[in-house]
């Protein structure tokens, strides 16, 4: 009897005792009340005082004259104007939900702020610092930039895997380019001919092969895709910066994971390296024309890692570039001449794994506040400003002296709550041996990295498991694909310290804070579901299939093989047990896997325990030949499509 059947039979037996349990209920409640204060364990799920409204500055850009710094604040859903002389916030405008990106119009009169969870862009008039218009975008807009004329806005839609072209005169989308997964940052080339879009997640591909990421190049004149620049072995492409010389090169911070090797490698370092792609145009061309050359170079040092490379900017004179390491609370100042020298020294692919490169071109590492995400440099190359996302502050770097000159408090709440501290823990790589990675490194945006990992198992090389999202996981215990961790405290306590971080890990107070944060990571709004919750016809048909009890030929589907048995709606579409859907491969030591929740499942690809199914459809068309993952062999193509349409609404 499968474990699922066993569970159901036990449930059946329990029902006969229901009346008896009801009698005991008042007594049990009384006992619970009496003992709750005496024996209350650390339970971050229940400790939820109202959170103060932190600012959470995530993106910054200068006005063209450098007199004002615009700061997008994800936490209080605003954009600020900071006077760089007085270092005071002089204006504030409320924008949409979870603002992430910022663009300044070529004439400097308008700001565009992307609202990731509103699927809109707020158009802010700089003179009045008020929202003039709200423009509709694709799902999850993050990076955005106007063309040189200021007539067209390019917006990276992270959830829709696309880039929207918005005609700013009419305020409507006129074209949409399909990208690979999670395009987040965009940049207009200095000559205005190209827009680049960097993808956070790699291509969906074979789970036993290294990841490949992509930098999309759009031709702004023809408004077509000019090139798809592949960046092998890398994930999490972040901000993009272009060297200020004509025909200059690009720098794109990234992560180079070693997910295919055994994770014991953390002991020696190297499991997660952090660097940047240097994208150089072919001779007599610009980046984006055919033949761009990609060289990856690491920003880590031997035995010291700088996790979470995120923000990047060149000084206007081109002599320096700055890269923030958002999970190491550090900014690295690069000497571009020495970088060029290093690139000449190692023209091949070897540089991508060399840990002695940074020492040749990083002239200084400086501490920042928590989670430095974005960097902007004054037009005179004198100062760099860095947004410290989890500190509500901006660090100012004196570039002449390569030192921290000041830290500007943006005026957020002074109290640091458990949840806020927990988010800082989530982004702190210092808990890992040699600072190789933080929770956020494998879970960018508290989501997933799209990779399958060789975690610790009874034997190396076995039991590869796909990374899973951390969004909305509060009520989805147990955790881990084998279901062995009954709660998050087990998942993130000694286990993670011992087998992942290979270091001390979090102490009790830090763990409490981390769990408070993790228990409160929100689910994004469902883009496939109408705001009023009304299902489309296809979704309704899919819902019927999801809850069906009979096959197309009228055969009864056993309870254990119905969708809603393992994925019940009342518990986030997971029965919270392990079951066997015969997804086990020859490399798995066990065929029983934790049933995943289905909330926002359309964002969670790849699927199945090892990430073999690249799409929802593949779960059944490729990996369910024996009808062990629900009865699907009788379904028509249309029925399967409908089922998937319904699943996307969950």
């Amino acid at each position: 009897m499968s474990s699922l059947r066993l569970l159901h039979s036990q449930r059946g037996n329990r029902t006969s005792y229901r009346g008896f349990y009801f009698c005991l209920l008042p007594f049990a409640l009384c006992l619970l009340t009496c003992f709750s204060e005496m024996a209350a364990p650390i339970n971050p799920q229940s400790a939820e005082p109202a959170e103060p409204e932190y600012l959470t500055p995530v993106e910054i850009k200068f006005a063209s004259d450098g007199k004002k710094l615009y700061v997008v604040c994800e936490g209080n859903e605003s954009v600020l104007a900071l006077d760089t002389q007085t270092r005071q916030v002089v204006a504030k405008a409320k924008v949409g939900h979870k603002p992430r990106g910022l663009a300044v119009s070529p004439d400097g009169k308008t700001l565009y702020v992307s609202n990731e969870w509103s699927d809109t862009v707020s158009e802010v008039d700089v003179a009045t610092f008020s929202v003039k218009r709200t423009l509709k975008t694709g799902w999850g807009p993050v990076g955005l930039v106007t063309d040189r004329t200021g007539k067209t806005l390019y917006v990276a839609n992270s959830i829709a895997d696309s880039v929207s072209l918005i005609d700013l005169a009419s305020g409507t989308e006129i074209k949409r380019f399909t990208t690979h997964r999670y395009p987040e940052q965009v940049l207009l080339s200095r000559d205005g001919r190209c827009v680049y879009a960097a993808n956070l997640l790699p291509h969906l591909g074979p789970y036993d092969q290294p990841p490949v990421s992509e930098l999309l190049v759009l031709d702004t004149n023809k408004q077509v895709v000019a090139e798809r620049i592949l960046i092998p072995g890398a994930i999490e492409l972040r901000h993009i910066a272009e060297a200020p010389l004509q025909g200059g090169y690009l720098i794109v911070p990234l992560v180079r994971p070693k997910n295919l090797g055994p994770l014991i490698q953390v002991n020696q370092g190297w499991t997660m390296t952090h660097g940047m792609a240097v994208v150089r145009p072919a001779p007599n061309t610009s980046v984006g024309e055919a033949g761009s050359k990609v060289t990856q170079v690491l920003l880590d040092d031997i035995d010291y890692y700088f996790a979470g490379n995120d923000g990047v900017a060149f000084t206007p004179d081109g002599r320096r570039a700055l890269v923030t390491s958002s999970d190491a609370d550090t900014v690295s100042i690069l000497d571009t001449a020495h970088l060029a020298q290093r690139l000449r020294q190692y023209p091949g692919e070897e540089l991508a794994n060399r840990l002695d490169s940074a020492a040749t071109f990083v002239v200084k590492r400086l501490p920042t506040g928590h989670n430095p995400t974005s960097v902007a440099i004054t037009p005179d190359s004198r100062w760099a400003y860095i947004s410290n996302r989890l500190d509500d502050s901006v660090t100012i770097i004196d570039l002449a002296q390569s030192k921290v000159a000041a830290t500007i408090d943006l005026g957020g709440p002074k109290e640091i709550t458990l949840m806020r501290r927990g988010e800082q823990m989530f982004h702190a790589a210092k808990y890992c041996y040699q600072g190789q990675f933080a929770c956020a490194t494998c879970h960018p945006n508290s989501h997933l990295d799209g990779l399958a990992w060789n975690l610790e198992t009874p034997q190396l090389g076995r039991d590869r498991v796909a990374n899973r999202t951390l969004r909305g996981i509060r009520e989805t215990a147990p955790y881990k694909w084998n279901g062995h961790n009954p709660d998050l405290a087990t998942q993130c306590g000694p286990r993670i310290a011992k087998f992942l971080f290979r270091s001390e890990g979090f102490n009790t107070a830090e763990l409490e804070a981390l769990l408070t944060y993790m228990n409160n990571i929100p689910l994004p709004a469902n883009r496939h579901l109408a705001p009023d919750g009304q299902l489309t016809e296809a979704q309704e048909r899919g819902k019927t299939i999801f809850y069906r009890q009979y096959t197309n030929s009228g055969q009864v589907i056993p309870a254990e093989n119905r969708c809603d048995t393992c994925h019940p709606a009342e518990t986030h579409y997971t029965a919270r047990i392990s079951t066997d859907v015969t997804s086990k491969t020859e490399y798995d030591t066990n065929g029983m896997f934790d049933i995943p929740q289905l909330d926002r499942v359309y964002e969670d690809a790849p699927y199945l325990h090892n990430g073999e199914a690249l799409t929802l459809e593949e779960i059944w068309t490729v990996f369910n030949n024996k009808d062990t993952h629900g009865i699907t062999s009788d379904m028509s193509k249309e029925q399967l499509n409908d089922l998937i349409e319904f699943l996307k609404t969950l």
Partner: protein
Amino acid sequence: MLSTSRPSRFELLMTKSMRAWHLILFIALGVSLAPWTFAAGAHTPQSVQQQYLCNQNKYLRNSRGDMRGGQAVALPELVIVLAPEVRGGPLPRRFPKGSGLVRLEPHAHSPHSLTPGFFTAADPQTSFDGARILFAGQNAADSAWQIWEMNVDGTSVRQVTHCADDCLKPAYLPRGEIVFTAASQGPHDSQLWVCKADGSNSHPITFGPGDFQVETVLQNGAIIASARSPLVPSRGLPADRHLYTLRPDGSGLATLRCDHQHPALRSQAQELADGAVIFVKAPLGSRNQGGDLTWIRRGALHNSPLMAAPVLTSSPKPINAGELLVARESTTSARAVKKLTLYAFDTANGTFGAPVYEDPKLSSVEAIPVAAHEAPRWYWSTLNPELHRGYFVCMDTHLADSFPHQRIAAKITRVRVLTLDSTRQTETSLGEAPVEEDGSFYIAVPPDQPVRFEVLDAAGRVIRAQRSWIWSRSGEEHGCVGCHEDRSVAPENRWPLALRRFDTPTLLLGSQQKAAGSKH
């Protein structure tokens, strides 16, 4: 000597009135301490040890203030070792009779002996809370060196270890443990041992010949040890000493950096605040307990000298960002035996400052600040004593730093594993395992037993032989990137073929395997 030396930057901070007060205090303290000093000398046989307290020591520290950003910063109290002589060679012979720990307090004008009852004492370490001192000492001429602990004022001295042979060079580990160097009369020379703060649960964490010695504990929790390399002295020369890292449970032994092209004795390693590792590099066969100050800057693959001109230095110790205390050959001594004096050293400029402390007769070495400091990270051990085997997984045996393009061109098909018979001290083979097309192999070996590898081609020829011993502890999965890999190159991201096989790990368990059969 004090009057002839150039005024230090610290001295310059002193006002004349401060000097006058200090003079008065100095005389008063000298008078008050004199009876105590002689009384202490009356019940200890180490009269030489007491003698230094009566010397006119040059304790310059009381007058110092360090200008940083226009603000005077007092340096911490110090504990140092005063010794008639500091010798090179075996650890137990470094400090002769009369060597001992003294405390230099900011406002006392003479050193305060902390180990008056000892025949000799050395190797002080301050506890993380700054309240206690761990050190090595000999009770009497014929007793073994042991590890001791006392309060920073010299009270509550207690013996931590009870070693049959000499135990020295201790260091504090987080969560109440201690690592120390246990000398042995056996063939394996000295080894690293770990015990609880009360001396209980004492156990070795190194298992190969190599004369392992504790150097320091890094902030990331790894221990730096020095050890002989290669194992057997070649051409009649003494072997190199290299720096290694390992975890406090004895797992993960790896070279800190490879520097085989430059034979030398490397020891006295310390970690600087920025992650650089500083150490003393002496020529092979040196009879001095010192050498050139050398460092591996953070991110650097190779070490480099810290000083423009070689000066005999010893026992560097970081005290502030960019500043060390270093014992160096005294510029004023004309003696045949080198006398060492404590100096400040600026790492940014590679220059010595003024002397910090100078004794006219004794060497002043091994200075440590008496101050609370951050404990290193603690490790969760992944060892499993019940497993009775350790594992090695190598990603690609073709990777080797000394070959052109860091790659062995010949095709490697097998790996032979040699071990050292613990009783006969002879090498025996544990067997061979296949090396996959991608250069990977995965084997299980007896735990806590020295092993080394030879990689072979299809004809059975040895392509490369490891020259030093390593081990895997029970349950340890020891990962290697290559065959003497380059620390500066991270491995490619791929699934090693050896881990795709269903008949790996290849069991090479020797006599244990014969006893247990060939089950996985």
